[in-house]
């Protein structure tokens, strides 16, 4: 089977190379059949990548350890769902996933535009197949997922237990979908620039793909933040880590692009800006893919000195040089007649939005790559930490939220003061009311939070007001009752009202971030059973210790040491939390001993979390296993002494008894444990805001049913006409 997989990859590479040639030949000679053949190469790429991916997945699901990466990333004790996800936890598997998704989205894009943009599409095809060829070549020559070992081990290393979390399973597919979807507008932009057909047509053809890319990338980022908060033992959701930032960069420029294309569609302006923005976004997407596996930056995620550095840097350099060349050499075609007439206009607001987003991207980029920059400038590698990032991103975020409130309401071209007064009266009032309420609640301690929440309230009020006015306008036009009018309003203007829902979601998310950063109560403390501590308004008591052994497929999956905590406020019971720590066995019996190895593999924290609409109570525990060490050593020695005298079955019974004894000893007589407590307000608003953003994104993405039906009917009618003409 491995050979079939490897064969598929070689075929995929060959198909991509052929497709590039066919598309370019078809473009040069004007012969559409060759372009069509090139398009079918993309379909073939998708099928071949899917086949290879299926082979890999089956190997993981069936725990076929003769596959080298199955042995190093999965085990029989890994639950089936996580075994499937383990496929992309490896370098090779993740590259194959990238190729598969590239094939999927490229095929979809080219299928939907198969009858359009005849001059642009061949070059877009060539670019997409170029990416395909690059990744296929990596898979064939540098990172083969189908390497087999002559002797298959009986048990695999297992999936890093930190990744055993549902959000982490789909985090990579979401991110990679985002990256590969950005390749589509990138490719079409390149094509449009090459043939100098730079009006809004290529944008409208690929607009949905840009929006979908933004959507998936956003989902991936939020899932990562959620995983960090709920699964890792530090209680935070964002650390400005280089790899987190790498995925944020294309998302920021992608958001700018989504907004600025509206100006090009409406007024034909900003062509150079849009082209540059989408090209930059594509470059940043590939950069993000590269950064995770490069090892060039110190990060919690960046791994391995990898051999893939040189090819990726070459590709990125090629993309940068090519993009610059295209934009500069086509700048006459990109010139526009229109200009921004007035600073008090929607064009200016959108421009401001773009400036802020690109500014944010610049700050994040600078801070992320600073170690390399400082090394180039001063010879010494230096890093900036989260405080530096916060210092610059927070003010920019404040301006962004302000613009989110101004943009939807202000008039096009030239707003008058009277018109502005009427438009902003209610939302400004909502902001003022919020401000007063916040001051009354004592939020004034943090000025930044005060301003942020006020501006968010303003932005939400604007979105709601727009919804109201739109419904009223729809009623005036169609006479429908209000609820129906609202539905048909949103249905007929999905992009606009989906967008407003996204604004609301972003505002809610920022409120959550502001509140949970500024007003968090944190406490690191050591507790013995029976002791209590105070965290903010809560009293937390360590009630008792727990322990257990989880068995799967006849083998020990993990050993758990946990705690039971009671949380009360003013004497009233609030919740019971049970944070614990799981210890996964290591395969290195020789290094750690037959008993010791169960405590020397990976360890994960199971966070105790009570989430609520107003406040989250979060806790993690670090049990002290040092007191068990002498018993573990005794068990190791006992097993080694009796090794020759016992049958394997007797040995495993003895081992089970030893482990069982250790585990119950811990629960009966636990040493004091190290706890971290966090009481943070409004953390749930972050996830709720994220959900609203995605709901809004889905609404904006959803294709309008009418247009599709109409297109189909017109297509048939044209075919009838054609065939009649031919007969």
């Amino acid at each position, binding site marked *: 089977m491995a*050979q079939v997989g490897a064969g598929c990859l070689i*075929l995929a590479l060959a198909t991509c190379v052929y497709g590039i040639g066919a598309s370019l030949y078809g473009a040069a000679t004007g*012969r559409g059949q*060759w372009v069509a053949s090139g398009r079918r190469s993309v379909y073939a790429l998708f099928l071949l990548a899917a086949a290879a991916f299926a082979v890999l997945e089956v190997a993981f699901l069936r725990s076929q350890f003769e596959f080298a990466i199955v042995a190093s990333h999965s085990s029989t004790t890994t639950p089936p769902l996580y075994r499937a996800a383990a496929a992309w936890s490896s370098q090779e598997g993740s590259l194959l996933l990238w190729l598969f998704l590239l094939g999927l989205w490229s095929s979809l894009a080219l299928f939907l535009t198969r*009858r359009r943009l005849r001059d642009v599409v061949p070059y877009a095809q060539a670019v997409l197949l170029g990416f395909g060829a690059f990744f296929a070549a990596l898979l064939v020559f540098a990172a083969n997922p189908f390497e087999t070992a002559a002797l298959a081990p009986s048990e695999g290393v297992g999936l890093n237990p930190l990744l055993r979390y549902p959000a982490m399973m789909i985090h990579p597919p979401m991110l990679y979908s985002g990256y590969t979807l950005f390749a589509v507008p990138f490719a079409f932009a390149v094509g449009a620039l090459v043939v100098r057909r730079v009006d809004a047509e290529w944008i409208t053809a690929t607009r949905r793909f840009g929006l979908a890319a933004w959507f998936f990338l956003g989902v991936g980022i939020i899932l990562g933040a959620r995983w960090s908060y709920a699964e890792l033992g530090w209680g935070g959701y964002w650390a400005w880590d280089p790899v987190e930032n790498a995925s944020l960069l294309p998302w920021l420029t992608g958001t700018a692009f989504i907004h600025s294309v509206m100006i090009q*569609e409406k007024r034909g302006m900003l062509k150079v800006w849009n082209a540059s923005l989408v090209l930059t976004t594509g470059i940043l997407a590939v950069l993000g893919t590269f950064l995770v596996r490069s090892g060039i930056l110190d990060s919690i995620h960046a791994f391995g000195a990898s051999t893939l550095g040189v090819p990726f840097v070459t590709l990125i350099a090629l993309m940068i040089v090519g993009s610059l060349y295209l934009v500069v050499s086509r700048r006459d075609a990109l010139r526009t007649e229109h200009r921004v007439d007035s600073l008090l206009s929607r064009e200016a607001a959108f421009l401001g939005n773009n400036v802020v987003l690109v500014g944010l991207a610049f700050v994040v980029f600078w801070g992320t790559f600073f170690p390399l920059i400082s090394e180039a400038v001063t010879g010494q590698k230096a890093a900036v930490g989260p405080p530096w990032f916060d210092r610059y991103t927070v003010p920019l975020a404040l301006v962004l939220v302000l613009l989110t409130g101004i943009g939807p309401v202000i008039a*096009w071209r030239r707003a008058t003061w009277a018109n502005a007064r*009427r438009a902003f009266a209610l939302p400004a009032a909502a902001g003022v009311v919020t401000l007063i309420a916040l001051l009354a609640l004592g939020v004034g301690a943090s000025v930044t939070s005060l301003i942020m929440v006020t501006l968010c309230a303003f932005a939400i009020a604007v979105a709601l007001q727009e919804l109201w006015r739109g419904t009223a306008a729809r009623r005036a036009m169609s006479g429908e009752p209000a609820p129906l009018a609202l539905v048909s309003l949103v249905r007929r203007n999905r992009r606009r009202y989906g967008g407003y829902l996204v604004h609301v979601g972003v505002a809610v998310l920022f409120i959550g971030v502001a509140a949970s950063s500024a007003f968090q109560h944190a406490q690191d403390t050591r507790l013995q059973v029976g002791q209590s501590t105070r965290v903010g308004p809560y009293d937390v008591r360590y009630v008792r210790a727990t322990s257990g052994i989880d068995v799967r497929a006849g083998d020990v999956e993990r050993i758990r040491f946990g705690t039971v905590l009671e949380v009360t406020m003013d004497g009233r019971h609030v919740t019971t939390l049970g944070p614990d720590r799981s210890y996964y066995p290591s395969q290195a019996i020789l290094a750690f001993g037959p008993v010791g190895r169960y405590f020397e593999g990976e360890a994960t924290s199971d966070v105790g979390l009570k989430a609520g609409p107003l406040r989250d109570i979060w806790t993690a525990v670090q049990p002290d296993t040092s007191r068990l060490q002498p018993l573990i050593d005794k068990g190791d020695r006992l097993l080694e002494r009796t090794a020759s005298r016992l049958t394997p079955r007797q040995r495993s019974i003895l081992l089970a008894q030893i482990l069982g004894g250790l585990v119950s000893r811990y629960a009966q007589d636990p040493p004091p444990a190290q706890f971290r407590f966090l009481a943070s307000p409004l953390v749930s608003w972050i996830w709720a805001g994220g959900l609203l953003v995605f709901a809004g994104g889905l609404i904006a993405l959803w294709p309008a049913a009418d247009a599709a039906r109409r297109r189909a009917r017109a297509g048939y009618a044209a075919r009838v006409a054609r065939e*009649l003409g031919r007969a």
Partner: protein
Amino acid sequence: MDVLAPLVVIALLGLVVLLVSAPLRGGRAEAEAQRQDARLADLQAAKDAKYREIREAELDYRTGHLSEADWRLIDRQLRAEAVTILRRIDELAEPDPRPAERGPQAASGRRGG
């Protein structure tokens, strides 16, 4: 398994070649028809986009984001552009089935207004 694998790969190669060479085996008439199709599809898309612009402009006016004077100007201009597109679509279609073809388009055009 060792013998089967290369056979499977060769079969896949054959499938890919079949898939990819299909357009090359078609005739010249097919190519011309496709070109016609493409121009029509581009015009349809342009028409859809234009209708959307007209509707959005009206919504902007009714929700107070566009002054009446500006709206009338923009609306007139956009409708003129839409008429041009419709004319070009008609020119592309064959004369005989014109009533059948304009039917659904005109109706949807009015619905979109």
